[in-house]
């Protein structure tokens, strides 16, 4: 089984796009990241929800000391204003380098192995230098759940 049937087609991000547009693009198809492409359609980077959340509102020291934090925090004040500020920002400052990719013919196990090595839950699929879509751990799990496992279960029982 290769990753092609599990692939989720997504929009691609471009430089100058707003964070809000990026969030919507991810929410539409429930993916954690999309690639950033140039005018020629080549991937020049990636944008991930986690990276933007970390960069915009989670400083390193807060992450490091998260266990000691109390219930009241200064960052909980004026949340709406801060959120609207982040949403109006262009995504350019949050673009990460091009990650490792796979082709649509790659087996699912290879995709899982690469995700594990890169400590990520998604992988972009690129064929002949052109972005095709994304495969996620969630999509793979959904596929496993659709398998007919009743016979195996009966044997085990």
């Amino acid at each position, binding site marked *: 089984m290769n990753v092609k049937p599990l692939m989720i087609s997504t929009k691609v991000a471009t430089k100058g796009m707003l964070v809000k547009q990026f969030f919507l693009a991810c929410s539409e198809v429930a993916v954690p990241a999309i690639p950033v492409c140039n005018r020629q359609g080549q991937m020049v980077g990636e944008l991930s929800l986690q990276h933007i959340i970390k960069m915009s509102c989670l*400083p*390193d020291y807060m992450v*490091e*000391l998260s*266990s*000691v*934090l*109390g219930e*009241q*925090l200064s960052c909980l004040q004026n949340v709406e204003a801060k959120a609207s500020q982040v949403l109006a920002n262009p995504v350019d400052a949050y673009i990460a380098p091009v990650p490792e990719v796979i082709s649509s013919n790659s087996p699912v196990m290879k995709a899982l192995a690469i995700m594990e090595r890169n400590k990520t839950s998604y992988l972009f699929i690129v064929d002949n230098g052109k972005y095709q879509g994304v495969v996620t751990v969630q999509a793979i799990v959904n596929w496993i759940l659709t398998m007919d496992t009743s016979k195996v279960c009966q044997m085990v029982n």
Partner: protein
Amino acid sequence: MDSHHISSSVIFDWNPLWVSVVLFLVSYAVIITEKVNRAIVALLGGALMITLGVVSQQQAILAIDFNTLGLLIGMMVIVAITRRCGVFQFVAIWSAKRVGANPWGVLVMLSVVTAVFSALLDNVTTVLLIAPVTLLITQELDIHPYPYLFAEIFASNIGGTATLIGDPPNMMIGSAVGLSFNDFLINTAPITLVILFVIMIIIYFIWGRQMQASVESQARIMQFNEQKAITDKTLLKQSLFVLSLVIFGFIFSHALHLEPATIAMFGAALLLLLSNFKFDQEKQTENVHHTFGEVEWVTIFFFVGLFIVVHGIEHTGVLDYLAGWVIDLTQGDLSITALAILWVSAIASALVDNIPFVATMIPMIKSMAATFGGEEMLLPLWWSLALGACLGGNGSLIGASANLIVAGFAERSGHRISFLKFLAIAFPLMIITIMVASVYIYWRYL
């Protein structure tokens, strides 16, 4: 200078003196530019000293001070394991809460904690642990973190001056001269207390008296649960036990007939054993590998190369010549020489890495023994070197590694510390600390 007595066989019959001087100057110049990693430069300089025949391999190996290296590595291992239990963050948050999260009180407490930790651990580790706590507290207090980070930089360099293990220059001086932990405790610790007090007063008048925080923001700090910072209570007990044992060993090293390196390495091995005892062999290997990975090998190999490079110019008589030149300048007056060493060390350490500077000064000062009537008469010079080299690190943002670590933290949190802004206040304050140190040196030793 007569270089004929030197038993070197330099390649192409070049003059060993000039070869050593060129290698020394080029190595130091490249180290200062920071274009190439300092460990690479020092190792290359050391290797060329041997390859070109200035010193033999045997002489080079004998020049490496394994007591300094052992002490550094041992303490680095102990700190690498101890920091995992979260005790340092616990103490920092606990101390901030003890003063009711009062802004000025927090600054004083964090500075004192930084100074104490820096006296017992290395300065870089201390600020790595305290800076995140500081940024979190100042964020919640809604106060600019700059005065806090500034005070901590000073506290870390001042605290490091207090003990043998506080700062690498002290380790080098202690090892080369045979000065014990107690010698530093008796001679440098008292004046560092005075200097820290003076700096706190000045910081109060610059920033402290204007510091204000709302009741709500102080309440947020009081809600912090410092107990949660402790990630492993067993490791905490083991680490504190070994750390206490090592400090005890340092204090009674003379009676125990043990060198500081032996005590530190013994403590490191014991803590490795205690913290890994409950794990299977595979996990033990993984843990030990991880711990050794946290040792700053760049610093260790930097020292190795540096010891050989400095031995090269010592071997060819360059340092004897320089020592003679200094004595001519100071007319053989111990007081003037001591104060000159103090001030030159401070200014140099504010601008360049104090480790190569101290490595060069040690053999130079040693060669002054005959002029001043024996090695025991050199003590004021050693304390001047220790105080100057360590306190000088406060003079600029590049004066000490800890300063750059704090600046990095500040920048990542959106509060950039500019070189000139820091210099404008730090350099005059450093000069004040050296003035206090001058009075102390003169009053106590001269």
